[in-house]
């Protein structure tokens, strides 16, 4: 074989490699030239039949041919890799505007979400979280809260009465836990009581017979109205993440004296809106200084200890937070409502 034949073979093989469009094609070319029965193998096989003087040159030529083809294949492979990467980077056919699939998710109930938020705020201020029965004794719901039988204030609580006698009812507020807490805990203490309450009311978009409240109770030495105001302002600051002006005005609840209604500046407007009924104030919670008769019912000496209590409307806070316009949804168990709080 002449040197020019080898050069021709090398040129042809390298041209084929450079034209190779896929790695598979390169493998084929490699096989045809360098594999068993391939071009290079044929040349090497022909060496024994050559003149001894030629053998060395042909052998070297075949090896050069092999190295040249391998180098060409490697170069072409690198090219193909680079092209492939470049093509992938072009991201042809990718449509970022396609809608992503809906994720399956679980959801906490909105009342749970807000309850947790409040629990976290108050426990960070040293409050413990208490619980009490929903089916309650008249004694805890009324009597011990300074609302004896035939007290006109009983009219304010549209009570569900249970069973036969006058003894059992569905609690109308979380306040009965005030007495249970006073009987159980040694002052000073701070506690909150989230839970469901019941009033016999006709149901419509803004009234439910079952709603959620959160009682607060702080008992200790030298607790004043000033502490109540300070506590509520701190709580509101945490809840709405800004300072909200509050005002106390007289409110009548037999288990506090003095008793207040606490209003906060509407967090949604400056000049009045539908949430605050154009008043710029939002009625937030009844509260007051624990009545000495209540402290005594709880076995606490009112001369030594004073305290304050408040009753936050949890359902109302939930509605404010998520702009829920129909209170009935809260207890309806409708998946179309619940899944929104994921």
């Amino acid at each position, binding site marked *: 074989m002449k040197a020019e034949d080898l050069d021709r073979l090398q040129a042809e093989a390298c041209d084929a490699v450079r034209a190779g469009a896929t790695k598979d094609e390169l493998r084929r070319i490699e096989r045809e030239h360098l594999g068993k029965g391939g071009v290079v193998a044929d040349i090497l096989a022909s060496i024994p039949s050559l003149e001894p003087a030629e053998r060395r040159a042909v052998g070297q030529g075949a090896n050069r041919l092999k190295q040249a083809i391998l180098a060409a294949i490697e170069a072409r492979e690198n090219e193909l890799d680079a092209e492939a990467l470049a093509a992938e980077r072009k991201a042809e056919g990718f449509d970022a505007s396609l809608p992503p699939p809906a994720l399956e998710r679980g959801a906490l109930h909105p009342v749970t979400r807000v309850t947790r938020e409040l629990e976290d705020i108050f426990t960070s201020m040293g409050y*413990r*979280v208490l619980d009490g029965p929903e089916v309650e004794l008249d004694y805890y719901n009324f009597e011990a809260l300074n609302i004896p039988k035939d007290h006109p*204030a009983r*009219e304010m609580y549209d009570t569900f009465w249970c069973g036969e006698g006058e003894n059992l009812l*569905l609690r109308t507020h979380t306040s009965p836990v005030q007495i249970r807490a006073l009987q159980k805990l040694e002052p000073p203490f701070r506690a909150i009581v989230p839970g469901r309450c019941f009033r016999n009311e006709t149901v419509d978009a803004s009234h439910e017979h079952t709603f959620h409240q959160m009682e607060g109770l702080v008992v200790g030495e030298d607790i004043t*109205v000033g502490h109540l105001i300070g506590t509520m302002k701190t709580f509101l600051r945490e809840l709405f993440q800004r300072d909200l002006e509050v005002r106390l005005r007289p409110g009548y609840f037999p288990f506090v*004296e003095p008793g207040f209604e606490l209003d906060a500046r509407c967090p949604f407007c400056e000049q009045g809106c539908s949430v605050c009924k154009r008043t710029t104030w939002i009625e937030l919670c009844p509260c007051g200084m624990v009545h000495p008769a209540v402290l005594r019912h709880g076995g606490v000496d009112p001369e030594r200890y004073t305290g304050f209590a408040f009753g936050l409307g949890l359902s109302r806070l939930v509605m404010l937070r998520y702009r829920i316009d129909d209170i009935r949804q809260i207890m309806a168990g409708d998946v179309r409502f*619940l899944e929104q709080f994921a």
Partner: protein
Amino acid sequence: MNISFRWLARHVDLDGLTPADVANDLTIHTAEVEGVEPFAPHLADVVVGHVVERERHPDADKLNLCRVDIGPAGSGELLQIVCGAPNVDRGQRVAVARIGTRLPGGIKLKKSKIRGVESQGMICSLRELELGDDHSGIWVLPDDVTLGVDVSTACGLDDHVIEIDNKSLTHRPDLWGHRGIAGEIAALRGRKLRPLDFGLPKTKGGDPYPVRIETEGCSRYIGLAIDGLKNGAAPAWMRHLLLAVGQRPIDLCVDLSNFVMLDLGQPNHLFDRRRLSPEGIVVRDAHEGETMATLDEVERRLGPEDMLITSGGEAVAIAGVMGGEASKVTADTTELLLEVASFHPTTVRRTSARIGLRTDASARFEKSLDPTLPAKAAAHLVNLLREIQPDVSFPRPPGDVGSWKDPACKVTLRPERVRAILGADIPDDDVATKLESLGFGVKRAKASWTVSVPSARATKDVGIEEDLIEEVGRLYGYGEIDERVLQADIVPPPRDDRRALVRTLQDRLSGAALYHEAMTHTFHSDELLAALKLADEPHLEVRNPVIEGYRSIRRSVLPSLVSLLAHNRRQRAEFRLYEIGKGYRPETANEAGEPREVHELALVHGRAADERKGTFPDGLFHHMQALVADLVACADRAMPAWERGGSDEAPSVFHPGKWIVAKGRDGEVLARVGELEPGLARDLGLEGELASEVALAEVSLDALLVAEAQPLVYRPIARFPAVKVDVAVAIAENVSAGDVAAAIEGAGKGLVDRLDLFDLYRGENLGAGRKSLAYHVSLQAADKTLGEKEIQKFLGRVERAFERLGGELRRDTAPPTG
């Protein structure tokens, strides 16, 4: 309660104050104001007109054609108005609604032709303006009212009404009249109440009017005879004030009685004395079944717990609630008996609640009225009447009987305590002046003062030191008190296992498990209980349900979620819901009578019957079982073994053949998992398009809290690779998968790291009554890589273990799937 701004001005100088100022004062210092509304806005467009000409309508005898001058309110030309009223006449001042005016009821007056003649407005009657019942003719105004002015201004009807929430006055019987509210404004603004004459006029001599009290429910009764009355309309000023607060004027007697009640807060009654017995009045309890017709023309049936005013043996009024039809004042009444009394609040409240009749009078008596007030109210009424009709006379002294005592009392007040409770540095002098401005008497001593409480405040409201502190605080203004931060030692609140458990479960369920948390009503309807076959179980019931039939308080939470299945399935092909809540068991009440409370987690998972996915085992039952086990693990508790539930003890919502139960250490049920009872599924409507696969579970949080603890502990990651082997067994149907799994684990001698059932197969090649279970087994040794020899040894042990169960190891692993 409605308070008229003009009415207040009769008692206190409101100069420089707007209705909004008064409302704000009351809001901040006294009671809850629900709103301030201008009175009679519907009259703003109705103007005073002068009838210049009246002639007969050319085509209708009964119609008049009037030309009316409305002065500056008009265009200068006279209005032509067709008017059907018989009393319209030339020279009258009348109320004219023009074209475009909106009348009460919302109708806008349009230009119209009446019998061919154009009418450019309407001359109004009192009824058309909602100012009274009179519709016999047009409203003729006084001659001196100014032409063209709106009638509310012209007639002194322009007013503002402040609406106060009655609930916020529950403890303040003294504020159930305008004078009481005026007293608050006077105290707040440092003004004086105008004096009122509370002296009774001279009466003729002789015996007092005969009154006898035979019941403890009446502590005072004043009966005063009045002669020479000419009943008719009350004076305009009185009618207008009554209109403003929403009371429709009737006649002089009714209006006067109402006026005094709304003025002083003391209910009273005027009888036609000719209808009473000369023997006078007896106040007594009703006899069982005694009846009388009240003023609203309803026959009322009464009993011994109700109190009556009687005369000559006949009931003439239900004490404190409403007068009787038979003795009511009529147009020709000339002789009256005025009743002003003190009735026992509870007696009045119970009667009014029992017969379902709440009146302005009963609402006031319920609040414990001042027993010194009747004499003042009687005098006030009589003095007003004499101003209106100077000729009335009083034939005998009033009867004033009863045993009552002035509630005025003395309360000790420590000014230091005022400052300590309010947290405000209010000087002694200020404490004293605030109290004095509200009518309290203050006798100052060093640290402990004596405060005299006036009768009107002493019936229920003010009796202890804290009550006085409230008076000082609200007058001082709570807004003046500086906020303070609570101080205490920094210690974390004690750990609450129950609350922590609830949070853990919620987080797992609403997180990884993709469940939605629901909250549902505590009540179960009769219908639901019947459908769920739970009606026979003992339920605590409310006596006064909101909706008839929604009376039972739930024993368990799960039925609440079951009741929501069909509704939610209509919305979604698949849904997962849970609720953590309470149930009540009345059959196990404690000594105080409280029913046992149970705290439960209920779960439902439903999906369309054709929604099964391809994986195995894919039944919702198995998902639910896995989920409950996961929740128990999440709570750091050991999962007790599941037991197959017996068909005869299945709770009625569970499929009797497809439910399992896990019990706690003391045998209490920790959890149940099952499919929905198929008959119930149909009853709930889960068929046809809504045909569904539904799995249910309930978990007792009470049992979970006391279950064996199994805190999470880290397992070291294996240092040698695991070997995977598939094992299948052909075995009798009645051998449980649990036994097969135990056999494999036993054969592994501690090497079985994971065991996953991946196939269940039944087929002819296995023979009847047999099934094939196939498992992926992962073998893992702590100290070496397992070789072929160990695997063959393991398979040998497995084969023998299966034989002991009556099964055979299938060598052809990767078995055919059904």
